[in-house]
């Protein structure tokens, strides 16, 4: 860490040594990327999206490249909350940064049970995924209507003793209303955006590419929209916001922070460049120096 630039930030009382967090679903439990670089250099890591019970995920094609981005329909393949507590946490702990468990659900009961179990475990924060577009029963439904989201966040809040981040879907009817509802229900922070519901068709087969027909769009293509949403939400809520959506470069990071984000997540860029986490971090310190920024917190929300 460069001493002349302060990159450390705080999100809901949790200190991060820098604002870069690996986004859920793109980074496993950190282990694979740790073979390439010390992933402990990141501010934090969000686990692969967990569900109460193990899930095999979706059949058929799961990833598909698009212009300046990609679509995915993995469908929350994961070992379940219990297995994560047994082995995943210890694996992630050795990196020495902020450990965020990302959890989705199919029903109110699943969310509450999972959150209860994770609250009793050694995680630093819980990121509640109310926005996965790739799970047919539920998931997305919680992320579309503000009143449904409010109900699930309220229920989770009651049992959750960890700082609670709620991850929002850009597919929400109204992203600002959604953010306000989650804040009202007790979220300590918000992260946005998850993937945009999108579609691709195989014209030779005359069929949708994905078995689920629709899938989630991510990558550089969504960045300007994500930035607009983060900006709009930051203007209205008091809780810290973690910006997500097509962040590839240190310049992108500064844009999101200037839009009001407390921290950011790197997702799809990890596939384009497996060293992205470390490289963006190095670039960020240099960029701040070049721009005369001595403390990254001083530019937050200037736009």
């Amino acid at each position, binding site marked *: 860490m460069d001493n002349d630039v302060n990159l450390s930030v705080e999100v809901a009382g949790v200190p991060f040594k820098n604002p870069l967090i690996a986004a859920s*679903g793109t980074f496993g439990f950190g282990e694979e990327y740790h073979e390439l670089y010390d992933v402990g250099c990141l501010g934090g890591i969000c686990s692969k999206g967990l569900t109460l019970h193990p899930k*095999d995920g979706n059949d058929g094609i799961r990833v598909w490249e698009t212009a300046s981005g990609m679509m995915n329909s*993995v469908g929350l393949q994961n070992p379940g909350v219990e297995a994560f507590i047994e082995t995943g946490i210890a694996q992630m702990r050795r990196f020495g940064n902020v450990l965020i468990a990302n959890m989705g659900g199919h029903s109110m009961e699943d969310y509450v049970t999972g959150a209860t179990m994770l609250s009793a475990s050694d995680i630093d924060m819980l990121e509640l995924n109310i926005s996965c577009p790739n799970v047919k029963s539920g998931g997305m439904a919680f992320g579309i209507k503000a009143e449904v989201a409010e109900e699930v966040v309220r229920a989770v809040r009651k049992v959750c003793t960890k700082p609670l981040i709620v991850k929002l879907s850009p597919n929400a009817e109204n992203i600002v209303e959604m953010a306000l509802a989650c804040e009202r229900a007790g979220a300590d922070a918000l992260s946005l955006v998850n993937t945009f519901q999108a579609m691709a068709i195989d014209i030779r087969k005359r069929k949708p590419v994905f078995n689920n027909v629709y899938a989630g769009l991510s990558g550089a293509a969504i960045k300007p929209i994500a930035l607009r949403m983060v900006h709009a939400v930051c203007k209205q809520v008091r809780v810290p916001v973690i910006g997500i959506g097509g962040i590839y470069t240190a310049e992108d990071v500064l844009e999101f922070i200037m839009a009001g984000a407390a921290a950011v997540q790197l997702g799809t860029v990890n*596939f384009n460049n*497996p060293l992205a986490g470390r490289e963006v971090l190095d670039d960020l310190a240099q960029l701040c120096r070049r721009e005369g920024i001595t403390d990254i917190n001083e530019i937050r929300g200037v736009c």
Partner: protein
Amino acid sequence: MKYLVGEVSVNQQITDDIWVVRVSCEPVEAKAGQFYMLKSWDTEQTLMRPISVFKAEEGCLWFMYRVVGQGTRRMSFLEKGDAIRLLGPCGNGYPCEQIKGRVALVGGGVGIPPLCETAKTLQRNGVTVDAYLGYRDVLFAVEDFEPWCTDMFISTEKGEEGYKGFITDLLKPEQYDVVLTCGPEVMMRKVAAMCAEHDVTCYCSLEHRMACGIGACLGCSIRTKSGMKRVCKDGPVFLSTELMW
């Protein structure tokens, strides 16, 4: 596994849609049947492309690839001296050290090149290697197999070269201790079924769309008899009896 910058020394079209690229890079750690994630772009394309090792030599790797979409088309524009990024070696490769006796390599189309390094490794381990190479029409890479193989069988669909028909018509699995196959799924299924009939061990190398190539994204997961497996990390080579197809 490392993320490397390589330099293209050859990039040549060898059939309508098959190209071969030779990349100088250090270190070369690839084992038979492993692959690399390649990209010759910055962020113009999002994902790297998984391409199997054709030949691994001191200080350089050869890849044979078929131009099927935007990524591989971009790769075909590479010229001598251009930089290319490599992530790998990825995947498990064929378990060459466990293989003894007489082996058949059964390749189809662009599934042929990944078997070449395997032929070399096995031959050097004292294994007798026969190659069964099935082509659509135009042959490629045949001479690369010749130094390592005892017998070679060639087929084309319309009989332009070698046997007319499918390569599986020529295979007699009962003559072998192990059969290794790579190619179109329909061909590998046939090979696997023939091996099962004669109780011969068969390994299949699968091709799959993938995003990370290192086991993190679960974009290439398949259902197997022992649960969900990642083609990129747990494969691409699987025992045929593990597969559910």
